[in-house]
């Protein structure tokens, strides 16, 4: 997660606010939220998706969502 992002839990998931670009992002999927929280603990994103309980056939959709979070600078891609 980007160091300038604050995460606030909500009944629908979470709100992510970026203090640098001042964008607010809604995370309304529990498993996506888990991946956002834990991605840094895994070597690659697939491991994080598996650990969060995302079925393999849904990985592609989650990767698109994660890509959008990278675009919004909520997440920082690492290689």
């Amino acid at each position: 997660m980007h160091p300038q992002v604050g995460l606030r839990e909500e009944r629908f998931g979470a709100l992510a606010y970026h203090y640098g670009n001042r964008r607010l992002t809604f995370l309304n999927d529990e498993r996506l939220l888990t991946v956002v929280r834990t991605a840094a603990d895994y070597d690659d994103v697939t491991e994080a998706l598996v650990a969060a309980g995302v079925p393999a056939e849904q990985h592609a959709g989650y990767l698109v969502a994660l890509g959008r979070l990278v675009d919004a600078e909520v997440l920082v891609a690492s290689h």
Partner: protein
Amino acid sequence: MPATKPRITDRLSLGLDAPICLTWELTYGCNLACVHCLSSSGRRDPRELTTAELFGVVDELAAMQVFYVNIGGGEPTLRPDFWELLDYCVESKVGVKFSTNGSRITPAAAARIASTDYVDVQISIDGADAATNDAVRGPGSFGVATTAMQRLADAGFADFKVSVVVTRDNVGQLDDFLALTQRYGAQLRLTRLRPSGRGADVWDELHPTADQQRELYAWLVDHPRVLTGDSFFHLSALGEALPGLNLCGAGRVVCLIDPVGDVYACPFVLHEQFRAGSVRDEGGFTSVWRSSSLFTSLREPGSAGACASCGSYDACQGGCMAAKFFTGLPLDGPDPECVHGHGEAALLRATAKPEVGPGHSRRAPVFVSLSRRAGDSVNV
């Protein structure tokens, strides 16, 4: 993502444990006397929150994880403890965006604002030239505002905001506003004229005409990067939805704290009927937000009322509660600026408008000038 989830706006309309952001007016004191002032500002109120009380509110906001506050007034920088409060917010990780007429943005203040990510600033103008602007905001105010913009640009502050209330007289200047804003490396923000505060006195003459609303909508669709604070969601009934939540957030995701600590449903309804409580009450802001009877009722699913048979209700949600209230329209009917003309018809049948006093307005016009004396600066 699975498509069966409720829409995010449906979840938000039921309210959150803490606001997404809130407006906090620090003082009713102002060195301008804009004809459309939402809060009828002018004179300071002797009951304004003390510095210690302000800090207490920041502590609550930090505990509730409110990401940022929109600080305004009046002119918030007139409070002697303004910069101290700003520092306290930043230390507490509560971001600040403050609105100012620019009169206290010295070069030193501009440098200070530019030095942290946690502070954003918005300079208000209401015309793209001095004549149009000063007719609304007072003689000299355009020069003061553009000087402040130059100082922020010189300090290296990119993407500060320039905020414009769209009126019948300036709606033809949208391209000019954008060009002006871009000259300073800033971002344009357009907001809606509300018949609130002194705005009630000028709304009939200044609110955009139906044709102007259509032009404004088309312009906003063409310029999705222009910020609106979700101001114009009533225009979404003209076609595709404008960017934003397109939802009345009053008491659900936003609210207002006024200079004496009273909490209202939104910045546009400073009226006893929409006062939820006070930060000075037992339990403070947190309990007002979470359990006041007003906010609880605003979070209940509303009725479409007279708008139920209109095919656009999903798009516009009946428009703005404050605009209806202050023009004497029922809250479960059309917005006075309904794009289908239902508002105009309703206005002809409207009952008496609510009583609105002069608030904190000054009795005589004021003139603003930018002080340039060496050493005469804010406490930065």
